[in-house]
């Protein structure tokens, strides 16, 4: 997993609530047996017409907006547990997703792929949407070490929560499997204690 430090980027605003993982990556794209190429089908049904041509009114097809931070309405990533949603977001090039609320499984999946979900207040979120609407060059700075997110257009900052263990994993580029494999003796002792 890649290490995560500090990131400053323009944003892609998606002011829709309850974006479910079926929208992030529709089920018909889940037939792959590796993790490659999901970024091409991120938000496929909102992004492309039936003939595969881009839908002009969808934000990913608007050349004015870009960057490695996706900003979405509340309850992002609800629904299916498909990690393909995190692979699609990562594959497209997003490193951070900002919302006022995330679904649990999506949050875990994102963190397990080095994508940082940042929870901000509803007010902070609304100001990003407003700001980006007025000036698509608006940037955010996400500082994982200090757990802060800043809106560089209005100078406002918020701190965000992250589990201390997960933070360490992201900063060092480690994953949970490395940790669990190091606990083999404990696992065997637990099994023996239940026999």
């Amino acid at each position, binding site marked *: 997993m890649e290490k995560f430090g500090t990131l400053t980027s323009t944003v892609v605003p998606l*002011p*829709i*609530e*309850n974006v*479910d993982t*079926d*929208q992030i990556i*529709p*089920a*018909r794209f*889940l*037939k*792959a*047996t*590796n*993790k490659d190429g999901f970024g091409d089908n991120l938000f496929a*049904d909102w992004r492309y017409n*039936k003939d595969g041509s881009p839908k002009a009114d969808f934000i990913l097809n608007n050349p004015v907006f870009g960057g490695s931070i996706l900003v979405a*309405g*509340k*309850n992002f990533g*609800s*629904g*299916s*547990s*498909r*990690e*393909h949603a*995190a692979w699609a977001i990562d594959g497209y090039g997003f490193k951070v997703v900002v919302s006022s*609320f995330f*679904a*649990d*499984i999506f949050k*875990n*999946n994102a963190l*397990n*792929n080095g994508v940082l979900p940042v929870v901000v207040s*509803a007010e902070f979120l*609304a100001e990003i949407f407003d700001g980006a609407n007025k000036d698509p060059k608006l940037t955010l700075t996400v500082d994982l070490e200090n757990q802060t997110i800043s809106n560089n257009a209005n100078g406002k900052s918020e701190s965000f929560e992250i*589990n*201390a*263990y*997960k933070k360490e994993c992201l900063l060092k580029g480690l*994953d*949970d*499997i490395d*940790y*669990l*494999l190091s*606990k*083999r003796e*404990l*696992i065997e002792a*637990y*099994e023996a204690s239940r026999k």
Partner: protein
Amino acid sequence: MSKTLFDKIWDAHVVSTVENGPTQLYIDRHFCHEVTSPQAFNGLRARGLKVFRPELTTMTADHNTPTIDQDKPVKDPISRNQLDTFAKNAAEFNMPLYYPLGHDKNGVVHIIGPENGFTQPGMTIVCGDSHTSTHGAFGTIAFGIGTSEVEMVLATQCVLQTRPKTMRINYNGKLGAGVSAKDLALFTIAKLTTGGATGYFVEYAGEAIRNMTMEERMTVCNLSIEMGARGGMIAPDETTFNYVKGREFAPKGAEWDEKLAYWKTLKSDEGAKFDLELDFDAADIQPMITYGTNPGMGMGIQESIPTLDQIDEAGRISFQKSLDYMGFQPGEQLLGKSIDYVFLGSCTNGRIEDFRIFANYVKGKKKADNVVVWLVPGSWGVEKQIREEGLLDIFTDAGFLLRQPGCSACLAMNDDKVPAGKYAVSTSNRNFEGRQGPGARTILAGPLVAAAAAITGKITDPRV
């Protein structure tokens, strides 16, 4: 100290706790299907790892499988490759519990688990599927995980989890006639919204829950994720024990007695504290339908869609987008509206009881000409029971066909897709945009409302 049911099971499975971090939780049963597992097995290969406890993983192909002609090669080459990969992984990693297409134990993962006795009270259960919460009906901690976590379980039989908050929902009194477990669940999700239980593990309790069969309890727990909950659970009782007893992988003899004594302790203690406790009156619940594009957008079948001024300002864009997709107007009543498809099946409503309810309603009636109906049993076990109980004859007489088991039109990974713009009354779990096929419009409902729609071709209150 008084403990909740959740606390008792969680505490019994803690292997270690990471300082300032999550809990390392031991997993008793891992269910595995073809769609969310290939990358996990690839991960094991890349790290040179074996599966740590192969006998604790049950594998079945269900998501990406056809529901007709299962004896013939799967037509779609990409789907076929995924199924072949599943088979190769099972063989290479010496997985003893592998149920491919055509196996008599094959079926929807959350149906075959309980049916074969893999699911037992007090267990921790995971699967790369959000509807793993289904197994909570037996008094288990069961939840969906991502593929990285599937890899963790295969490699170590553990996952790292943050302890969720606990919620208890009490349903007092009895459900009315013609009101099903699905209606109770859709009612609850509509009250709490699609994210309202996020961060919580829910225990369902009260008279209406106690009166339910295991099939009904599974439907309730199955839908826990649709309000964002990590999972849902119901304390085991005689109904549970009677269901589990005698199933192939259930404990036998002295082991049964020992387990049973333990299972009887699995209930929330008097005075146990929940982070949140809610009460509903079961008599307030009506047959439900959804009108929007998430399961929280539900209403009683006689009611009308909310008007814009009833929606929070921040949510109006999403609400309008949702209704535009569905082709509905704010304030509209849906009763009597013409529909095109009916789907009975899925891990939500693909069990024998759902087929009994459907059969009981359609007996002696005829399918509406304007409707395509897919009846998809959740497993070969359910299919066999449908035949044995004579339900197949009722379906045939009424003009219905029975398909072969699988997830089918619930997520439309196979050919069971609802065409763009068409309305489907579906007993599945999600009405998301495109869930049942690109452009498909899904109205979620219970098996009885689905049966009435299949006969009239319209949204119909089955009680009338």
